[in-house]
């Protein structure tokens, strides 16, 4: 029972972290039809900026906000200078974002070095509860809380607000929305940069969990996010939420019982789901 409880918390926390990453990807893909291969890079930029700020200021909140703001700007620049030139041309989008990923991952190595850098958890989240035989790390509970908050926030933003309405309309008929006097390009930049900021949030929260950040962490997490987006149904926000929880829980269970299989488990799961549901669990496939 203790093990079950611990795995549940660990799995949900892991899922929340994957969700932060996958939700940004899924929003950009679902709303703009763009697959963003820079996501893993934006993730590590978030992590590194968080660590750099935290080591100077010792303020958790300030560091997270700094990471998100900086990467928001970076995302806006990516969209304005590169991605906006290749809307509608999917192979070019994939290639150009891959190129940016290579450049900016190497820039991280240039600035912060190729070896991982470490960071401590902030004091107020560093503790743990011991209930029976189970150890619950405060930070993991915090992650679950943040993930839930972000999920609800984005859902409300897209479905209930005027901004969400414009974005949804712009996806279907950008020219029409533009004709109504709304600067749709600005909204798309905003969506892309918003997705980037979510990746940065993921990176900033990931760093204190593992205690370190390395330039290879981006690709690893990007792969997890991709698997989530594929099994959840390409571009379905709800799908990526459930996919993340599913993947997180499965990861925790497999790592506990059969650690040697943890590498292949994710892909096996993806293959199985695609075999039975080619469009993913929430089948809102982007047909392109």
């Amino acid at each position, binding site marked *: 029972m203790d093990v079950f409880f611990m795995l549940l918390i660990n799995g949900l926390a892991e899922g929340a972290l994957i969700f932060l990453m996958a939700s940004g990807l899924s929003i950009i*893909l679902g709303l703009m039809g763009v*697959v963003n*291969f820079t996501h893993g890079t934006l993730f590590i930029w978030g992590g590194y900026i968080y660590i750099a700020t935290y080591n100077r200021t010792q303020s958790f909140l300030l560091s997270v906000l700094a990471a998100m703001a900086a990467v928001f700007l970076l995302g806006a620049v990516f969209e304005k200078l*590169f991605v906006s*030139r*290749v809307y509608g041309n*999917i*192979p*070019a989008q*994939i*290639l*150009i974002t*891959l*190129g*940016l*990923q*290579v*450049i*900016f*991952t*190497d*820039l991280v*190595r*240039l600035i912060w070095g190729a070896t991982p850098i470490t960071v401590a958890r902030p004091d107020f989240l560093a503790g743990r509860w011991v209930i029976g035989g189970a150890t619950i790390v405060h930070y993991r509970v915090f992650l679950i809380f943040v993930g839930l908050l972000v999920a609800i926030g984005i859902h409300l933003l897209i479905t209930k607000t005027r901004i969400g309405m414009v974005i949804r309309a712009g996806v279907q008929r950008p020219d029409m929305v533009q004709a109504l006097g709304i600067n749709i390009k600005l909204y798309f930049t905003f969506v892309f940069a918003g997705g980037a900021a979510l990746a940065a949030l993921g990176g900033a929260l990931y760093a204190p969990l593992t205690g370190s950040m390395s330039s290879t962490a981006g*690709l*690893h997490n*990007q*792969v997890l996010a*991709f*698997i989530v*987006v*594929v099994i959840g149904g*390409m571009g379905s926000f709800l799908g990526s939420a459930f996919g993340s929880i599913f993947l997180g829980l499965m990861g925790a269970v497999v790592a506990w019982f059969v650690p040697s299989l943890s*590498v*292949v488990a*994710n*892909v096996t799961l*993806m*293959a199985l789901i*695609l*075999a039975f549901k*080619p*469009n993913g669990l929430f089948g809102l*496939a*982007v*047909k*392109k």
Partner: protein
Amino acid sequence: MIKQQFKGSNKMNLLLLVALLLAMMVIPHFAKSATVALISRIFILTVYGMSYDILRGYMGFINLGHALFFGSGAYIAGILFTKLDNTFGIFILVVLITIIYCSAAAFIMGKIVIRGGSVIAGAMITLALGEIVRNMAERWRSVTGGADGLPFSIPPIFRDRLHFYYYALIFMLVMTLILRQFLLSPTGRVLLAIRENEQRAKFLGFNTDKYKMIGLQVSGISAGLAGVMFGVFNRFANTDLLSVQQTLNALLITLVGGTGTLYGAFVGSGFIAFVQNTLLNLRSQYPIFERWLLFFGAMYVLVVLFMPSGFVGLWQKLISEAREKKKGSAVDAK
């Protein structure tokens, strides 16, 4: 257009080809050994690039896990040469096992990706698959040597650099002929049809999934064989050969050379190997060139933005423009 590329056997092209071939045959007798090694590398990477071009250029499929074939070829060579023996007989065995392994891997990859459907899903899924294989190679230390890599000795017949140059040249020529024949075959034509309009190919009664699978098999096996040669060339295999970076190399080779041209791979791999070599030579003076990937990425973005059809595409465009002009002036003269 396609016909022109392949059967463009007008005398000029043929002559050019023969001259190039002759040049490649005599070059090693005049060049420095470093240059001979560089060109051997280009030959092998050309095959790797061509294998990628079948997917990207002829099927319109972006495979981000392609390195798993290439790297596996190198690893199969390394593992068998260390665990068994380094004779020519084992080399034959390596080739056979690579073909079987790559065929099986392509089958599994195809089963998953073709279910997934779109180009986006394909790219995402193959990236995940490639990373998984790299991860497995990194953890299976007892066989692959983990992150340290796997140095191994090779059959004596391949040890001489000058001889190996010719083996690499023959390898490239044979693979080019085979792949060219494959693309000209009815199966290859169907692949083109799928790239241009999958729906229509389906309506014509072709089982498009089956053809995609065949294309992936051919591409995977060629990449695997290129990997074997690359492993023998370096006498070393490491997880970098399985990484996304290695896949991106193939992508950049086809991009720079020109996608959907097959021969573009030769131009592309030559250009990239040359640039890389030059930049790495510069690093003793300017430390910034240590970060070759920065330039690699920048090249990538620039090519996608400004030269989407690559060198061969650019060349064809120039030629056709020149022809138009000729025609135009001929009409004027009348």
